[in-house]
């Protein structure tokens, strides 16, 4: 079994999975149960001046049959007294010395930061995470994402924390910025030992059409909330990758955003994450998801000959490039496996309406613009004559086929096909020489 232990800027953890700051880390009793279940660490629900929450405070977006594809909340930081929180944290650390315990903090003044950091250290925390990310409620009070969006303020508070803290300082970034490198560089430039990202995204999850209220509704009114869950993973992956590939960012990254399975986690690690934090998936399915998060990752590492998580970390980062670096001569075409095909013809519709009109079926006359040198670009005003396409001899009545010469290799059909592996993209690079856009414009400039 692969070694799943990590050392995150000095914070040790038996596996890379930490509970992200949120409802699952609200209390000592919860965190203890999570540690019993197997979580490697926990970032405590953000501490600060206790607040008052509203009802209701969550909302979700279901897609197709899947509930909670996206999640939103308008809850604030802890609503329990600080003393109680610190007491419970100390008890947790005492009982689970091998797990990573991190205090998430959010206060205003320099003196408040000094005090809360010292109390975190006294409670036995392994590190602190500065919450510069919360995009609702707290930012209106000059905290949370109000800080994360202002690199100067962020740098100042980070340097205070670095000054007061004898344990590692993580800065949790907000994705509600134009370029994640700005706050990322500001944080590491002012002493952050590690970066956590992403916090939630400003959003309105839906509108109740009966009450005419944005959701979640608080007595007939709503406000924007923080978006998270599976739907935000691509945004988080991009931001983690963008920091990971920048040579100026040496601090380890704790990836957060939509992690639900070990595969999500492996993807984040491959793009440069050193630890993984999870919130929504636990709120949805409970602490027990840790079992397969651990097993699946370990299984994956074993199967791929990697002895530890660190061997996976950043493996995909060098391949994360700018568009201008990509090879313009690389070509693939869609290949349909007639034996696996169930004849739904979703690929046909997708290619016809959403791609390049090069998948054909029996019985149908093709309305694509064939025979035009520019595939019809210039003759939209004319009505094209439908073309009869000859089916390959072996073709089953409902199995579509691809006109390879016309296929632009976009892989839409592969994505819509309900049968995994039925449509594959076959490499047909005619020109072995690779050439990127940057190279091409570079040559032209010479």
């Amino acid at each position, binding site marked *: 079994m692969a070694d799943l232990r990590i050392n995150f800027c000095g914070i040790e953890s038996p596996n890379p999975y930490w509970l992200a700051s949120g409802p699952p880390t609200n209390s000592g009793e919860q965190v203890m149960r999570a540690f019993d279940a197997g979580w490697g660490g926990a970032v405590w629900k953000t501490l600060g001046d206790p607040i008052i929450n509203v009802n209701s405070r969550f909302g979700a977006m279901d897609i*197709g*049959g899947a509930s909670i594809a996206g999640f939103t909340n308008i809850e604030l930081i802890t609503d329990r007294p600080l003393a109680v929180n610190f007491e419970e944290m100390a008890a947790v650390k005492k009982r689970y010395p091998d797990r990573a315990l991190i205090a998430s903090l959010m206060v205003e003044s320099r003196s408040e930061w000094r005090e809360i950091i010292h109390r975190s250290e006294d409670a036995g925390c392994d590190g602190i995470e500065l919450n510069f990310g919360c995009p609702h409620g707290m930012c209106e009070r000059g905290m949370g994402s109000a800080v994360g969006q202002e690199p100067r303020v962020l740098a100042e508070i980070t340097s205070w924390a670095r000054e007061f803290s004898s344990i590692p300082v993580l800065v949790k970034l907000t994705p509600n910025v134009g370029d994640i490198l700005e706050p990322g560089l500001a944080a590491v430039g002012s002493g952050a030992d590690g970066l956590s990202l992403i916090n939630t995204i400003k959003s309105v999850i839906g509108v109740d059409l009966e009450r005419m209220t944005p959701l979640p509704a608080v007595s007939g009114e709503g406000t924007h909330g923080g978006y998270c869950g599976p739907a935000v993973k691509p945004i988080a992956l991009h931001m983690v990758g963008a920091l990971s590939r920048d040579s100026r960012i040496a601090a380890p990254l704790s990836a957060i955003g939509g992690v639900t399975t070990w595969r999500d986690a492996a993807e984040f690690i491959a793009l440069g994450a050193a630890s993984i934090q999870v919130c929504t998936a636990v709120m949805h399915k409970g602490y027990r998801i840790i079992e397969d998060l651990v097993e699946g990752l370990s299984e994956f590492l074993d199967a791929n000959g990697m002895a530890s998580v660190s061997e996976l970390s950043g493996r995909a980062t060098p391949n994360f490039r700018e568009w201008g670096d990509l090879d313009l001569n690389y070509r693939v075409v869609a290949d349909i496996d007639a034996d696996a095909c*169930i*004849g*739904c*013809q*979703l690929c*046909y*519709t997708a290619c016809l309406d959403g791609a390049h009109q090069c998948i054909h*079926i029996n*019985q*149908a006359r093709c309305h694509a613009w064939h025979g035009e040198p520019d595939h019809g670009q210039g003759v939209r005003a004319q009505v094209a004559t439908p073309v009869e396409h000859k089916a390959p001899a072996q073709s089953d009545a*409902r199995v579509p086929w691809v006109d390879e010469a016309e296929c632009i290799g976009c892989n839409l059909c592969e994505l819509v096909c*309900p*049968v995994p592996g039925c449509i594959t993209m076959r490499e047909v690079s005619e020109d072995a020489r690779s050439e990127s856009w940057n190279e091409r414009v570079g040559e032209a400039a010479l």
Partner: protein
Amino acid sequence: MTKSAASPRLAPDRLERLFDDAKPAYSYAEARIEAERCLNCHDAPCVRHCPTEIDIPKFIGQIASGNTRGAATTIFEQNMLGASCARVCPVEEMCVGACVYQGFNGQPIAIGRLQRHATDEACADERATGRRLFTPAAPIGRKVALIGGGPASLACAAHLALAGVQADIYERDSVPGGLNTTGVAPYKMKCESSLDEAAWLLSHGAHLMTGVAVGTDISFALLLDEYDAVFIGVGLAEVRTLEMDGPGVWTATDLIRAIKTEQGFALPPSVRRAVVIGGGNTAMDIARELAMLGVEKVTVAFRRREAEMSAYAHEWAGARSCGVVLRENLTPLAAVNRDGGLCAARFKETESGREIELACELLALAVGQEVGMQAMKAGVRQNANGTVWVDPATRRTSLSRVYAGGDCINGGREVVDAAADGRIAANAMLAEWSVEKGSG
């Protein structure tokens, strides 16, 4: 003769009440989960295998989006009997049998149950809100007589009424719905559902006259004189009986009718064993109904071999799952009586020629029905097997103003075929009149 726009009801004390639905109604949550699975196939094979060509992926998508009324409208536009078809269609042989999931995980979309959900919910919404799914057009000054009040005529009448045509249904029975009311197995659909559906169909403006047998109480010729067109939807009238009779001997259709519609009807307590003669779907239905009613041993006796039974595979499997057993290669000879009651059925084994007896206290004959048009003297051309000849595109008979549909043209198929015929005939009449109008 009773003339009413509403549909008559049945007494509550009927045996069919004992049956649970084999395919119960979905809640919205259940329907949505199922609906979300539909792939929305191009040129969907399920549609191609629906005789009424309902746009199945469209209505399923409408259920998924929460547009239940839209889903019902999509269904009814093609099939006004969408509610009963949802329950009684042999979907395994039609839409569901063609669903692409058959070739993927073997779990095709439950199209019938989704259709039931959409039609039931939309009709309930109509009743609750008074907002109709369909509004009849203003009268266009045409009138049509429909003979028989079964699925074919009801569908045709509803389409006509919606187009502003006066549609008068003449039904010899006391209730509308034909075999949908009196024949369909009660674990698929109860009489109430069929009568509710008939009431809903009639509520678009058609008229129902019950207790009128055309040919006996009123002549076909008179109808042809009085109306712009006549639709024949008389179904299959006469049951082919074997030379078997006496106490305890029933035709399957009579017995099913009694189970479904007769107040206070019960199987005599002496009935522990039953023999059903036949190999078609009606034989499977009555065998299964008897087994479900607690008859200990139900045997289907069939003339030839299992593979030659005309019953659908899923119907035979359903009967078998209720404990029904099959005896092959038996030619029926006689009902055997003892002490004034039935004690056995006698058969000849086809191969050995040996005579055998199967002990039973009830014998049901399910050996088919045929078209009985003689009494009506309609004068339309009939095919060799007695069915009414129609033009496949219009369902028009050999007489220019006479149309026909349902079992009487196909020799006994499904409710959905009757529904398709009704719509096609109605549209053909409307097209005919608009051409006449155009040229005149």
